[in-house]
């Protein structure tokens, strides 16, 4: 008779536990949040106070302004850090010679950046962008802060994607007489596009979920930051934090959490599909 090995049992138990935690968290939030979302939608239809009203008031605790702020933040911060991150990765992979000291330093700093917790970014953003540069509590302060925060993530994923492009592509392109920049633009970047996009989408997820770095940079005001250079505004995650800490609209907090979670799940799925296509192409 075969006895059950205790180690084997532990391994299975741990894996089961990990899955159970994820499933329970997602299941619980959706289970509590989904009915409330339905209620809020029907409130909206009937013209009563709803989470989906265009304008925020303390009665409807609408999340619409925060969603708009989040979108503005995603577009601009991703715009900045994609240009910077992809260019950095291009330099590291395509131009820098291996064993270059300078490249070592860039690697170390970008690793350092990715290890810094968001609260430290928040503090830095408050000291530097809000006060020193004088941008005040504005959406742009938050945008610049998260742009630095997601930079290492984009550098990293672009680097991986560029490295995955076979050497023969480059050699063939050079062999046909194309210069380096042309090769990068026309051959390498398009082949690496799925991987780059997968990284960008993960970064979007980070921006959406960010709270600590934004509380004291873009602030917690409830309106749409129509002029993002001057006015601050809360993002969806900050909105959710404010709802839970105010403690008066718990049902709405569940609904907001469910929406936030759904978006994150979707984003992860999208990034996963793109990254998968990257490896399949080989």
């Amino acid at each position, binding site marked *: 008779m075969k006895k059950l090995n205790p180690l084997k049992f532990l*391994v299975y138990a741990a*894996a089961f536990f990990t899955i159970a935690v994820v499933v329970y968290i997602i299941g619980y939030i959706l289970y509590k949040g989904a009915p409330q979302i339905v209620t809020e939608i029907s409130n909206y239809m009937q013209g009563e106070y709803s989470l989906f009203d265009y304008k925020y008031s303390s009665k409807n605790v609408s999340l619409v302004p925060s969603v708009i702020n989040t979108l503005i933040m995603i577009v601009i911060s991703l715009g900045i850090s994609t240009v910077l991150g992809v260019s950095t990765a291009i330099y590291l992979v395509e131009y*820098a010679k291996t064993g270059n000291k300078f490249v070592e330093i860039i690697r170390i700093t970008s690793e350092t950046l990715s290890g810094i*917790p968001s609260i430290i970014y928040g*503090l830095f953003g408050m000291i530097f962008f809000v006060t020193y540069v004088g941008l005040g509590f504005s959406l742009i302060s938050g945008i610049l802060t998260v742009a630095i925060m997601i*930079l290492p993530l984009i550098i990293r994923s672009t680097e991986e994607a560029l490295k995955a492009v076979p050497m023969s592509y480059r050699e063939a392109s050079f062999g046909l007489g194309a210069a*380096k920049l042309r090769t990068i633009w026309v051959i390498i970047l398009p082949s690496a596009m799925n991987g780059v996009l997968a990284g960008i989408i993960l970064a979007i997820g980070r921006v959406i979920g960010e709270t*600590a770095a934004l509380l004291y940079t873009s602030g917690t005001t409830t309106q749409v930051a129509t002029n993002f250079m001057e006015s601050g505004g809360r993002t969806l995650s900050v909105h959710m*934090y404010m709802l839970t800490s105010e403690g008066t609209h718990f049902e709405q907090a569940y609904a907001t959490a469910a929406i936030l979670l759904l978006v994150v799940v979707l984003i992860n799925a999208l990034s996963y599909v793109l990254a998968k296509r990257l490896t399949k192409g080989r």
Partner: protein
Amino acid sequence: MLREKGKERIYEIFFLLIASLSIVCVLVICVFLFGQGIPAMQKIGLFDFLTGTTWNPANESNPSFGIFPMILGSIYITAGAIIVGVPIGVLTAIFMTKYCPDHFYKFLKPVVDLMAGIPSIIYGFFGMTVMVPFIRDFFNGFGIKALQTNGLSIFTASLLLGFMILPTVINLSESAIRAVPDFYYEGSRALGATHEKAVFQVVLPAAKSGVLASVVLGIGRAIGETMAVIMVAGNQARITTNILSGIRTLTANVVIEMAYAADLHKEALIATGVVLFVFILIINLCFSIVKRKVGN
């Protein structure tokens, strides 16, 4: 042709300049954090600041800025998170590499990645609405005075952070285990070892530095976590040894009081952030040392 060369050179320099931006970022972050934090530490007195056991900035005549309770709080909760997260994470990584059928791996891997993507505010909300009441009811159910708790505790925070560092520990341990050459496993099986013996006594020890690196990174994640912790840890700025009572971490100190802090109080909070930053830098340094060891 020569002009073409020159143009290429300009592009290279352009990319180089952008690449050096991440160095600039780290420098600027260091300069501004330390530049604001160190004067505050000098005013309070570095020793009083780091080892002072009372945090009472609101006292107008004699405010005290001792962050020792918060340092302890961060250490307690991080240690707890490691105790919870590392065994489960490493065992899950072993499952993924050595036990898991291929088709199930295709499901499990994205689940772990998703876990890393869930925002900390969601973890915190889950902790606050599910774990805190559960732990309160569970321990109060014994009816023993020593186990009385309101649920907002070191224990709850450690458990929640343990869950949160799982994806970090799993992913790094997984790649460490995968990096061990197959013949380690095959060789030990050929010598008559069982699957468990081969995995736990040959493969795992060979992957030890990679696993250690995952633990170090997990420590970094746990000590820097903010939003989830403040929702479950109770946030009382005092020293305690009872893991069922609440405590405040360095991160929580910054977030909670920054909203209304001014003058020296605000500077002291920034200095709190600097202390955290130093912790993080040390942890990062350990991480790269351990990682370099793996490389060799």
